[in-house]
């Protein structure tokens, strides 16, 4: 328990938290535009990680170069899931049904991954994965810094796309009010499909960094999805900035508790903080109060 350790916890919060924020952004974007809660996001991150793994082991493609292949692949996976299942859901119970449908999709993928890659833990390896450098007494792992830069670049381009392009304008219009967006000539169906695709595509980069910094198997998705869901709820569902802040807060709280108290309690501390925050603000940090009733 000292200043260096706290500084180091803060550093981890920002570096690792930004990667969680990236994965959660896909989730919150999809919820905001489509009222869909994509429980499959966790297993899709793992799928992204396994894709990087397969490319590296079988074709010796570098993890970062591999993203040029895995990102479009994950985008297509997202579009297929949306067209096949999500887009068919209608009616007032759409959101509740989406939780079940995406859970089913997630079980299917989990079973398939277990069969293909077995349940043994793997971790992505590269010459730079375990290297680090130090500034003062604080150590920075290369892969964590690379993950942060990657997340920052992707979140930045997502921001530019949403706020500086015509497509982004139609996404935001659909986010604000689907019926009105359709009335002014926006093809909400197409916007939804592409948004879902983008929401899933970020799992390629997120999964690669996750896989390089953790050993994983298909059942790691349960831990991931619970974290991602709580991040978007803590940040306020549908809020992109909220997802950013909550992602960083999650890792930061966990690490500080780990340093000050004991690593055993770090995950639990975050969940307790989550419950307390929601007692105080049921709509999350940046959520609009009762913006979407039931």
């Amino acid at each position, binding site marked *: 328990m000292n200043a260096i350790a706290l500084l180091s916890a803060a550093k981890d919060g920002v570096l690792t938290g930004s990667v969680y924020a990236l994965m959660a952004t896909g989730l919150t974007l999809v919820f905001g535009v489509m009222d869909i809660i994509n429980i499959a996001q966790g297993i899709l991150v793992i799928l992204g990680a396994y894709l990087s793994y397969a490319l590296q082991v079988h074709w010796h493609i570098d993890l970062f170069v591999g993203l040029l292949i895995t990102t479009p692949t994950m985008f297509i996976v997202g579009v297929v899931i949306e067209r096949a299942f999500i887009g068919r859901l209608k009616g007032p119970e759409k959101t509740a*049904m989406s939780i079940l449908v995406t859970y089913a999709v997630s079980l299917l993928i989990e079973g398939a991954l277990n069969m293909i890659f077995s349940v043994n833990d793997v971790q992505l390896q590269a010459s730079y994965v375990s290297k680090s450098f130090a500034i003062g007494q604080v150590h920075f792992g290369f892969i964590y810094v690379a993950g942060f830069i990657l997340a920052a670049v992707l979140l930045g381009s997502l921001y530019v796309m949403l706020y500086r392009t015509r497509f982004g304008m139609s996404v935001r219009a659909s986010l604000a009010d689907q019926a009105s967006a359709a009335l002014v000539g926006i093809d909400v169906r197409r916007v939804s499909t592409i948004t879902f695709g983008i929401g899933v595509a970020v799992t390629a980069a997120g999964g690669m960094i996750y896989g390089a910094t953790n050993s994983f198997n298909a059942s790691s998705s349960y831990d991931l999805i619970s974290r991602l869901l709580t991040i978007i709820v803590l940040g306020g569902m549908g809020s992109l900035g909220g997802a950013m802040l909550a992602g960083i807060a999650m890792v930061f709280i966990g690490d500080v508790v780990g340093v000050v108290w004991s690593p055993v309690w770090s995950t639990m501390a975050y969940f307790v903080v989550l419950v307390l925050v929601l007692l105080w603000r049921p709509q999350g940090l940046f959520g609009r109060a009762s913006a979407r009733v039931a």
Partner: protein
Amino acid sequence: MLRARNLWWLVVLAAFGVFPLVVTNPTYTTIAVFTVIYMACASSWNMFSGYSGYIALGSAAFYGTGAYTMALLSIHLHMAPGAAMFWLVPLGGLVAMVFAVPIGWIALRVRRHTFVVITIAIFFIFQLSAINFGFTGGTSGLNLPFITWGYQYYNVPFYYVGLGLVIVATTLSALVRRSRFGMQLLAIRDDEDRALGLGVRTHAVKVTGFTLSAFAVGSAGALYAMFVGQIYPQFVYDPMFDVSIALMTFLGGLGTLSGPLLGALLLEASQQYLTIQFSNGSLYLILFGALFLIVIMFMPQGIVVALRDRVTRRAERERAAVSANEAPLVHDVPRDVAVGGAG
């Protein structure tokens, strides 16, 4: 018509009652014990989530709490292994209810979608507590007093206690549905704001429903702990538990009385059977996921409602053919469809 329906329930109950007398193979009675445990849980889960529309995915917290109540009390009271331990089964349910009050009070302050996530978070708090605290034995789990009933008949008492839980849960569910309280839950499902405006104390009603539904789940967890003899945090606080009972309920018919029972019977029995036959968890996940998708995409209201709709349509056709003659069946059925539908 109502009497004919009650007769049906009695026939089914009798069939369940004589099952272990007819089928004595321990392999199958083991499957039967797990099946009644899940039937009780699904029925109870449906009483809150099905009627109110608030999908809870953290009931495993109650299941695990019941299991730990059974384990800790039987160990620390130095109970003689045997039938006396069954008294701890309802106690497990009561302890789960005690936990359910503050959990429900916190989690039900938010609306549906956030509620789902908060229940998941609370579930993980319970699981992590069981792993981290010393008195739970951590990941190495707890061993209960070892019961030395003969292999041939070991399952039978557990089966009947489990069946008793199913009866308790289903009776409670039926009573709730006919009561004013049940109407308030259904009103919350259909339009919470309007229900509030009409004077339903929505928060109190929801917390009460949530707490009531914890009883059978906690009891079932206690029964499970006694049945298997040793418990581990990752098995009694299992993330798949809630998905399973939600799927069972959706498969049978969310918000109906018999739906969760039918769904649990079909799914749990087939799951246990497949596990014994193939012992391939991955294949099972794929089958389970595919079945889940088919049910939700093609039968979103569940088997019970889909069947009733068919019966109703046929009866209506007949009625149209025989002109406007009284057809008592039709009067009975649509009321249930209206209650069970739109789930």
